[in-house]
């Protein structure tokens, strides 16, 4: 061992697996300055860093659109797929079938999910595949210059003044109804809430669906839009105050059980939901759907964790596969011996 003291540079903060936050960064974003998606990428970087996620285990997946470019802007050393429009869920499903030790992190947009991708989205939700599925939701198609998407509110206006006259698809309500087991809505401008929800999702085993309102500064941030920064700030009604305590931090948090719900997640982490205006039970599907409907009726954007089910087995659990990734099973495990072929041939004679 060296005996001379090495002058130490000011040590950068490392996480529980010894990595610095810089190791969770991605390429420089090519999205518009001020795009909500960039803030979400930042929160994903923080969440993965703080949770001590191993980057090589992460499969970043996306479809097509501005949102779907963003996996290039975080976790550069992870593995990524920028798939075809609206079909990322199937690619994610296949990847997890091949290797269920991967941490699937899907990023989609409102067009990619609620229009072209609605078919794969609903089946992803009902399978409860272990994936963190983030919708970067701005109510418009950005990359094709501002057409309405299927999450745009009735009456919301384009820059040209054209008003949307079809009702929005509430991806959270759909996800809850279909069987996703961790369903939340947040706002790209709410750092604290979004970070806590992302970390909670990483600690959850099953489909975590996060619809994050993420204003499009270029095509949908004007007066008359219901997905502009100012509109969302004015109408955001958090359903509860959410904080996250990871399993590896032995911190006992003082809270009043009368005002706070403590949810123990799959990996032993805790989500603490402190009551705000009203009582809310995030394990009750019916209540979650009612809260969403009422918020719509009142013109509010309700955010927070709407629904969580820590018991339902994931799709991978149901498949009862061997622990080792199927992708790397040796030939001896996947090619039956000659005797089996002989036996089958005999039965066909």
């Amino acid at each position, binding site marked *: 061992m060296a005996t001379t003291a090495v002058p130490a540079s000011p040590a950068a903060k490392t996480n529980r697996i010894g990595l610095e936050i810089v190791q969770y960064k991605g390429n420089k974003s090519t999205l518009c300055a001020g795009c909500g998606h960039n803030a979400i990428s930042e929160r994903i970087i923080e969440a993965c860093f703080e949770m001590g996620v191993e980057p090589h285990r992460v499969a970043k997946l996306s479809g097509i659109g501005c949102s779907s470019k963003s996996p290039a802007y975080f976790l550069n050393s992870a593995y990524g797929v920028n798939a*075809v429009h609206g079909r990322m869920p199937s690619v994610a499903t296949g990847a997890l079938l091949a290797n269920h030790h991967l941490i699937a992190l899907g990023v989609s947009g409102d067009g990619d999910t609620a229009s072209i991708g609605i078919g794969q989205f609903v089946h992803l939700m009902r399978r409860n595949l272990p994936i963190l599925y983030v919708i970067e939701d701005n109510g418009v198609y950005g990359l094709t210059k501002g057409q309405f998407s299927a999450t745009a509110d009735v009456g919301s206006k384009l820059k040209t003044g054209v008003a949307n006259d079809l009702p929005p698809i509430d991806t959270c309500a759909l996800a809850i109804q279909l069987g996703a087991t961790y369903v939340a809505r947040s706002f790209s401008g709410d750092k604290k809430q979004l970070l806590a929800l992302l970390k909670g999702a990483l600690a959850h085993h099953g489909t975590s669906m996060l619809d994050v309102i993420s204003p499009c500064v270029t095509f949908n941030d004007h007066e008359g839009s219901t997905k502009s920064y100012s509109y969302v700030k004015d109408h955001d009604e958090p359903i509860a105050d959410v904080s996250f305590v990871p399993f590896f931090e032995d911190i006992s948090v003082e809270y009043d059980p009368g005002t706070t719900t403590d949810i123990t997640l799959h990996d032993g982490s805790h989500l603490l939901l402190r009551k705000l205006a009203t009582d809310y039970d995030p394990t009750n599907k019916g209540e979650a759907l009612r809260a969403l409907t009422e918020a719509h009726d009142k013109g509010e954007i309700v955010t927070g964790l709407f629904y969580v089910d820590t018991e339902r087995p994931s799709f991978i659990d149901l498949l009862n*596969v061997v622990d080792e990734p199927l992708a790397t099973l040796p030939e001896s495990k996947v090619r*039956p011996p000659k005797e089996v*072929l002989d036996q089958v041939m005999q039965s*066909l004679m």
Partner: protein
Amino acid sequence: MATTHVEPKEAAAPAGQARSVNDLSIQVATVNGSGSQTANLVLLRAIFQMGIPVSAKNLFPSNIAGLPTWFTIRASKHGYIARRKDSEYVVAMNPETAEEDVQGLKPGAACVYDERLNLKRLRDDVIFYPVPFDQLVTPICPDARLRKLVRNMIYDGVLAKLLGIDMEEIHTALQKQFRKKAKAAELNWNAARVGYEFAEKNLVKADPYFLERMNATQGKILIEGNAAAALGSMFAGVTVVTWYPITPSSSLCETLIEYMKRYRLDKETGKATFAIVQAEDELAALGMALGAGWAGARSMTSTSGPGISLMAEFVGFGYYVEVPAVIFDVQRVGPSTGLPTRTAQGDILSTAFLSHGDTKHPMLLPCSVSECFTMATEAFDLAEELQTPIFVMCDLDLGMNTWMSDPFPYPAKPMARGKVLSAEEVRRMGGFERYKDVDGDGVGYRTLPGTPDRLCGWFARGSGHNEKAIYSERPEVYVNNVDRLAHKFETARLKVPGPVIIESERHKVGIIAYGTSHWAVEESLDQLRREHDIDASYCRLRAFPFHPQVHDFLHRHQRVYVVDQNRDAQMLGLLRLECDADEIRKLRSVRHYDGLPIDARTVTDQIATQEAAN
């Protein structure tokens, strides 16, 4: 009903007719959903067990119950197993089609029929054997609900008597068919016996057709192509199977599920060494297969024409991102929904270039159940070695019909997993470039997600990318990349199965065929020689891209007939794209596209006519 007892005359044909032994087609016309499949398969198996080469074609409607269906069994001492156009025997069980079935018979043919149909009045040049099926079934099957299913077995007994099929073989075949369902086996056995006894007492053999024991099926198996492909996939070590039901491919994955549950559970843990998922549609089925291929699994899907159309976008993605997957296309008749239960080779051109932009894909072309098995194994090796989707182009005739075959060979080579780098290798190299053509074969090196080193990560994108897999729109980067993909296709050309060539010494007329047309061509070669003094060479394609030997074959012959089971001569079209002007001038077309499997007579007639005009 005749009541006189007639002594069986097994040894002799009726006066004035020569005995015809082991050379006939039996067509059974029934209503679908009536349980006739069991009776037909038992008949097929019984003939097979007598050592007689046999084949079967099931012509069925896209329906569950109530529409006409025909099952043709051909027994051929010569070993021909292609479909034949006409039949020596028809069993007319379907009132809807009975008259047409009889009218279509050639003079001297025989007809076993349901007495109630009163078909005798229709022709006097056909031999009729009326059978009172309802009367016979009632006493042996007290449960009225089962009678409809059991009564078909009666014709097995009748045919056994008339043609000389050993009833012991019917019994053995029934046991095999019903395996553990002893009660059902017995019920059916009683029906067959009742039929036999009825024929023995009441029918006078008046046709010259006989079946006699041979020794040509010893050690052979009977299997459908879809089951063979399923077995091939299992022995190829497939781990992820994602599919969407569609006729005629469904039975491939369904059979695979059965085999995998039986043979691919881990001995120690009882857990599955595979995942099989029924997807929400064909787009998702292929998306999952590609996701799994990206993550390193041996993945597959199976589908038919409409599914192929839906998969187009993802296939281009797989091609450009360079992800392995195996796609079985069990072709049926298109366009659109087409004739879902009829056979064709109609997806050749669209699949070869499936998806937008410059794309082309290797296709394997099995002609037999044995090749369904071996090419399945080869397809998984090729997919991983070439890092691209590989198509196995079966058709309904091969996939869903029962074929006689030699037992399948156990894979001789270990699984070829292609160029996959470990973390250690990447570290040693100080990194890697995903799409760099290091070896000059157009195939780059890849790492699998989860490989534990920060140098191993890469981003698979369907958008333009450079050698490092980073987004790029630069013109020269794009050209380099797609040129490398074209070069990789040339690597594929020498890796895919080459053609099988039977050379005539005359070097004038050649035939090129692929897939199930093989069986008709094989028989047609004999017909052409015998009837037209045409001694043709034969080149059976086994894959696209075409091996250089195909061009050599074209060079050696003056006229080459390309046999296609589609309207537009699709394989000929594909050849034209790869041939020079001299070669193209030699190409002629033989086409058959009515939804029925191609027969030798069609090939012979079309070639003979064109040769005569030459």
